[in-house]
């Protein structure tokens, strides 16, 4: 009897161990509508939120409201999973048919692992059923962002995902209302660049010479031309050069009790890798950035630093070359010299001055604190204008408005509709140029990843629906809805009417306008070389150093970025890092 009892207990225990094999996580089994077909969507619920997906799903469900899917299922029920597992194995075992991500997610690796479905048929299908005959997802993408076509279309001429955000990237935001109310804009003729910018600028320099800084609210007097050197554009009145920018910061601190910057201390070490890269992209532009993809061409902005830590341009341009053998292995290259681009130096220089300028008074104390999250930094920024010490700039990303939805709602409850996202005015701050020589060049911003793909394991009806879902979200209606809800712009051809623009926030209007001008571009890897050194060639690796600092902020945090000499040291160590990496991991490897 005892033996039998022992055997029963052992059997029960063995059975219990079976459950250790079972996985955990996934979507909670809620009460689904048994009369409808369920369609699952996974979403990385961060800056973009999921309100836009809910709106999209509602219309997609309406489209299929009377479709009989068989087995007693009439109509569609779409369920959003806001915490999906983005690991390849997690995706493959998931019920989610379509995924929205905020990052690049190593696209080509996912394709190689058969995680993503080939959606070429959907991308090239005519959108006639949605009233856009003659257009396809591909044509709308090509018309707006041909650089993204080369990233998403494989060498086999196939698509496995489409981009989510066309303007999604790191940026600085400025408070337009604050600038107007405190007359923080430079007047026409009120700053040095008005007289010294190149004659080739869209607006010629003024006659005479600069004597004293003059400010305006932009209403009572005309604003200066700004970094693009052209009057009548969005950047009018904003500082055109580093010198003007930091003079403005001093003016804010000394005369206006305004703190120039705030950012999230919790993610500063990471974010500043990308902020520096954004500065680099603005200075080097698309041509300079393209060299980092092709590793072939003329680099005319390279330089070195002198004993004082100042940038000294090379006397002659450098020809960047790369030779490979029959197997594609790199046998020789001087592409690491690109780390000597002027943009690399000046990006570090800019942030060094922000960190150390005016006795560290250019940023809030919260910016150095690990508890200040992204949403808290947004809140700090938004609420500051109602307090004694407003903040002029927020270093964040173009998704910030959507991410700050709760803060905007709270402000509306306290201060009324004038405090809403649509009514408060913020602008996209174009980076000032390092020197007067760069004034007149158009502003640029880097965009990151963020993509939409279909799970490779879908079949049958769900597969057909997923492919249609891809097309559906790129219709004009869906694109406009995305812009209205999220406040950013997808990289597909779309034209907003004046009425539609008026309904958007000032910041979104600026994003739309800059996107139309082609100010956003991507440098995500596309070649085999860059794909297989994906980490190294990503934007967030550009400012790694041999001194172990991965961004200017990390060096500053360690007390090693204070003054021009430190900027020079940082620049040299970035150069060494890139050279070491090429020699250790790429050339003849």
């Amino acid at each position, binding site marked *: 009897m005892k033996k039998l009892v022992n055997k029963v207990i052992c059997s029960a225990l063995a059975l219990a161990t079976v459950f250790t094999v079972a996985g955990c996580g996934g979507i909670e089994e809620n009460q689904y509508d048994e009369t409808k077909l369920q369609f699952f969507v996974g979403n990385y619920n961060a800056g973009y939120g999921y309100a836009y997906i809910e709106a999209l799903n509602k219309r997609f469900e309406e489209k299929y409201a009377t479709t009989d899917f068989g087995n007693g299922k009439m109509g569609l029920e779409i369920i959003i999973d806001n915490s999906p597992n983005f690991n390849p194995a997690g995706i493959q075992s998931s019920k989610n048919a379509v995924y929205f991500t905020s990052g690049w997610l190593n696209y080509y690796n*996912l394709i190689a692992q058969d995680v993503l479905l080939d959606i070429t048929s959907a991308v090239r299908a005519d959108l006639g059923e949605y009233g856009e005959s003659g257009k396809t997802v591909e044509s709308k993408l090509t018309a707006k962002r041909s650089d993204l076509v080369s990233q998403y279309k494989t060498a086999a001429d196939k698509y496995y995902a489409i981009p989510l955000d066309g303007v999604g990237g790191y940026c600085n935001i400025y408070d337009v209302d604050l600038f107007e109310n405190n007359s923080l804009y430079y007047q026409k003729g009120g700053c040095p660049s008005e007289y010294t910018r190149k004659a080739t600028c869209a607006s010629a320099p003024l006659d005479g010479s600069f004597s004293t800084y003059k400010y305006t609210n932009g209403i009572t007097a005309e604003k200066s031309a700004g970094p693009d050197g052209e009057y009548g554009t969005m950047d009018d009145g904003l500082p055109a050069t580093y010198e003007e920018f930091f003079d403005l910061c001093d003016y804010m601190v000394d005369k206006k009790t305004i703190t120039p910057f705030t950012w999230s201390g919790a993610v500063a070490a990471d974010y500043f890798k990308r902020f520096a890269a954004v500065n680099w992209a603005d200075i080097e532009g698309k041509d300079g950035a393209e060299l980092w993809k092709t590793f072939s061409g003329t680099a005319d902005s390279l330089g070195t630093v002198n004993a004082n830590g100042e940038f000294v341009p090379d006397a002659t341009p450098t020809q960047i070359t790369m030779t490979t053998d029959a197997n594609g292995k790199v046998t020789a290259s001087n592409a690491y010299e690109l780390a000597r681009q002027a943009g690399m130096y000046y990006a570090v220089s800019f942030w060094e001055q922000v960190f150390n300028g005016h006795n560290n008074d250019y940023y809030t104390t919260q910016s150095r*604190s690990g508890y200040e999250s992204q949403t808290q930094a947004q809140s700090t920024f938004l609420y500051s204008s109602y307090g004694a010490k407003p903040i002029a700039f927020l270093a964040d990303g173009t998704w910030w408005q959507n991410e700050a939805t709760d803060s905007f709602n709270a402000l509306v409850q306290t201060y009324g509709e004038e405090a809403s996202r649509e009514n408060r005015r913020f602008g996209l701050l174009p980076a000032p140029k390092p020197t007067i020589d760069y004034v007149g060049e158009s502003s640029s911003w880097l965009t990151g990843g963020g993509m939409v793909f279909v799970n490779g394991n879908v079949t049958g009806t769900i597969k057909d629906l997923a492919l249609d879902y891809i097309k559906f979200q790129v219709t004009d209606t869906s694109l406009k809805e995305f812009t209205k809800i999220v406040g950013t712009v997808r990289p597909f051809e779309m034209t907003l009417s004046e009425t539609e623009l008026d309904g958007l926030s000032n910041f979104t209007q600026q994003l739309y306008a800059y996107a139309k001008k082609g100010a956003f571009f991507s440098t995500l890897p596309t070649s085999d070389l860059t794909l297989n050194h994906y980490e190294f060639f990503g934007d967030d690796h550009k400012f790694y150093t041999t001194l172990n600092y991965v961004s200017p902020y990390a060096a500053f945090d360690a007390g090693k970025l204070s003054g021009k000499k430190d900027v020079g040291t940082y620049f040299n160590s970035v150069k060494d890092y890139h050279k070491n990496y090429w020699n250790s991991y790429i050339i003849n490897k």
Partner: protein
Amino acid sequence: METKNNNVKKQQKERTKDLIFVLCVLAIPMLCFAVFYVGTNVNSILLAFKKYTVQNTANGVVANYEWVGFYNIAEFFKQTFVGNKAIILKNSLIIYGFNFLFGLPLALLFSFYIYKKRFGSGVFSVMLFLPSILSSIVMTILFQYFVELAVPNMVAEWFGEKRFSLFGEGIEAKWKMIVFYNVWVGFGLGVIMYSNAMSRIPEEIVESAQLDGISTLKEFICITLPLIFPTVSTFIVTGVAGIFIDQANIQGFYGTGTGAVIDVQTIGYHIFQSIMVDSTNYAAYPPAAAAGVSLTLISAPIVIFVRWALDKFGPTTEF
């Protein structure tokens, strides 16, 4: 004779049945062990000698694992011992050093205090063990908020000092905070185990010593420590074995995503983060596997040596 044979056969049959039953019971756990432990570890070891590449070809996107011999292991040694990742080795040793030099003695002292049932010993045992019970994420967030928000705000309000920080400013301050936190939370399990071991010391030995007029300090050094040495020795050995896998609760401070800067990383955290930062980047797996293999080759002989040394030179007591 026939009866005897029948009995033998019956016993054999019974034993066979028992054996079959045991095998059936163990089958699934053994399968789990084979797949999730043996298979995973064998694959990890093999991965250390491979490289993962992706090619975007006209025939499609193709992924390959190529054999690269000892390249990954050589790179790991080069970077960690002479290269720009030497700091993570230093940090791992610092964390262990502080735990050994401060955490271990303090845990022993606190355990002794609790064992002696002095004033507030009940409260102490709860307070010291609490970090081990609560979620580490909750604890690190609470601690970080206290250090970086509560204390500076209190000082600003009471003394008007605007930029006060308990550990200073910058990344060094962050590192000090992490080290302090790890020493503090490291007490819990040790206190429970040491005080439990101390409670097993025979009363007669202690009473006898007290009758001879032994002081509390001498009792601690000459009686308590030698008698609980096997427990202490176990913790020292497991501590040494854990030097290179200790993540020092860094993820709690820095969260997921790109995580901590290298200045505050330990080897264990670095390996973990190299995978976690982008789990779709399969190219990061072979170097991480190589790091694991290399660290096993380094730490195994060290652990064996430490174990041998403690057994040889430590007090041998039985009770």
